[in-house]
């Protein structure tokens, strides 16, 4: 089922013309409404009139997560707060969150994009869908929710954290679709199996995202639950879930490119690469009002394919993600930067700045262990004091990251010292 055939199946020429028109309008809009972009353009002698078509996009400067941090919280907004109807936030690279704002129109577009994704997964108004992404500052819950309401499905806003309630309602309500992280869905499948409920569910589709996953995981989900699983992609800076999604042919994720213009950049030169070549994904938000971003570098590695898909859609498809340019980790669907741990540990005077993060997946749930060394000054002969310190560090990390970590105090001088780029992460999961 194709939600918006006009936009999803238009010819490449038509799409290019639409993108060109929207880019011209966008550049004029940000130049006059966002001081950051005006100054950036002035510094390279670029005027809005210099941007005449989508091909001119390479003349424009990039935007990075650091730019959002430097303009925290609302510095990149193009409209006054009277026009902003919603705020979301995700992890920044250090203490400060990355904050985004949506106008009513932005929320409409968001729901439209999610509606396209849900339709790709065969979900429609006859379906009962459980949204099991977190509701709150994280875009997952409310983002998927808006699109599910738009298609007229019966929406059950489960949020996260109560697997027992989720499985009970899945059976009792006869839920036919679920939106959650793929690792959580595998966990749910185990809960269902252990409760003997697998043959009592009516589930047919899952829309999984918010973390990288593999074909192997898809096969596992589909086999265990006897459903179809679809990959949805998004990031809060651009919008949230719904930027791209894969159809039943699973030949890459269809980008809603009438709203988000994708570019793949060489990781060294940052010049666009040819189709099929892997590079860093960047997006330009063609229609966004609240916080329009130009050439926002996602740090995600992928390649692009603009040939028509067997499903009938002509929209560009990005391949399954092949990794990250930076050291960001996604743990239980939450973006985590090692630098956040570093910033958090500075607050704890009892420990040295050295740390190691060990990420693993146990029973399909991500685990994070943070190893720290205690400063010699704070050595103690009491177990109680060490346990109190462990708790204190875990609390500081929880506050900084929004996820629970197991803290392990290790012997001095056992953690790797910085020699150039120190390795602070051991990720035992196989995600790419």
């Amino acid at each position: 089922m194709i939600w918006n055939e006009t936009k999803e199946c238009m010819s490449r020429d038509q799409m290019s013309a639409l993108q060109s028109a929207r880019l011209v309008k966008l550049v004029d809009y940000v130049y006059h409404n966002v001081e950051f972009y005006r100054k950036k353009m002035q510094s390279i002698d670029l005027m809005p009139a210099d941007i005449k078509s989508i091909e001119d996009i390479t003349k424009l400067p990039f935007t990075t997560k650091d730019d959002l941090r430097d303009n925290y919280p609302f510095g990149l907004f193009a409209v006054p707060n009277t026009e902003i109807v919603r705020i979301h936030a995700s992890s920044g690279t250090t203490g400060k969150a990355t904050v985004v704002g949506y106008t009513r129109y932005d929320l409409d577009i968001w729901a439209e994009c999610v509606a396209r994704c849900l339709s790709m997964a065969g979900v429609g108004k006859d379906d009962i869908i459980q949204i099991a992404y977190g509701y709150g500052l994280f875009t997952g819950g409310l983002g998927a929710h808006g699109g599910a309401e738009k298609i007229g499905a019966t929406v059950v806003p489960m949020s996260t954290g109560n697997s027992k309630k989720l499985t009970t309602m899945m059976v009792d309500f006869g839920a036919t679709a679920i939106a959650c992280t793929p690792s959580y869905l595998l966990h749910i499948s185990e809960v269902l199996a252990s409760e003997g409920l697998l043959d009592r569910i009516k589930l047919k589709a899952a829309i999984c995202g918010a973390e990288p996953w593999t074909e192997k995981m898809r096969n596992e989900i589909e086999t265990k639950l006897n459903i179809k699983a679809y990959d949805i992609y998004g990031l809060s800076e651009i919008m949230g879930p719904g930027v791209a999604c894969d159809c039943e042919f699973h030949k890459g994720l269809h980008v809603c490119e009438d709203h988000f213009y994708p570019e793949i950049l060489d990781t060294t030169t940052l010049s666009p690469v040819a189709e099929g070549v892997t590079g860093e994904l960047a997006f330009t938000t063609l229609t966004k009002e609240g916080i329009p971003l130009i050439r926002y570098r996602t740090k995600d590695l992928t390649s692009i394919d603009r040939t028509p898909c067997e499903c009938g859609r002509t929209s560009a498809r990005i391949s399954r993600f092949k990794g990250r340019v930076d050291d960001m980790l996604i743990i239980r669907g939450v973006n985590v930067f090692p630098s956040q741990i570093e910033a958090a540990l500075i607050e704890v005077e009892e420990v040295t700045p050295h740390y190691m993060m060990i990420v693993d997946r146990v029973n399909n749930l991500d685990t994070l262990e943070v190893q720290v060394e205690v400063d010699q000054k704070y050595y103690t002969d009491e177990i109680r004091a060490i346990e109190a310190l462990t708790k204190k560090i875990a609390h500081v990390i929880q506050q900084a990251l929004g996820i629970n970590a197991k803290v392990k105090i290790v012997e001095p001088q056992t953690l790797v010292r910085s020699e150039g780029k120190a390795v602070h992460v051991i990720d035992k999961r196989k995600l790419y």
Partner: protein
Amino acid sequence: MFAKQLTVFIENRSGRLSEVLHVLKENNVNILSLSLADTTEFGLLRLIVDNAALGKEKLSENGFSSLLSDVSIIKIPHEVGSLQSLLKIIDNNGVNIEYMYGLSIESDEAYVVLKASDIVKVDEILTANGVHTITCEELANI
């Protein structure tokens, strides 16, 4: 009078305890008593040795983190009920005991190593009650 206890933080991995003991042996540091407090992740090895300062120095050179702290070593008669009598004195004065371990030498006397929440107060209480505390050196010479 306080005695110096040598405390070593060790991660729970095999061979670690033996490595600590090896360092002490190589440097001729004699262990008079010990207690190993363990959790799932780590252990605290608390040692009464004849030369705690030397032990700490040598352990540090070998990459172990250790700590010297003041504890009370108390001589008690090697007979039923003597430890309980001692604790009664401390309890009556409202001081908590953080940890304790014992050693018994082939004689009529036994010794307990004790760390209280307020070590100075405990020392005063013991002295006021005529209870003897000794140093590691004294203990080593028995």
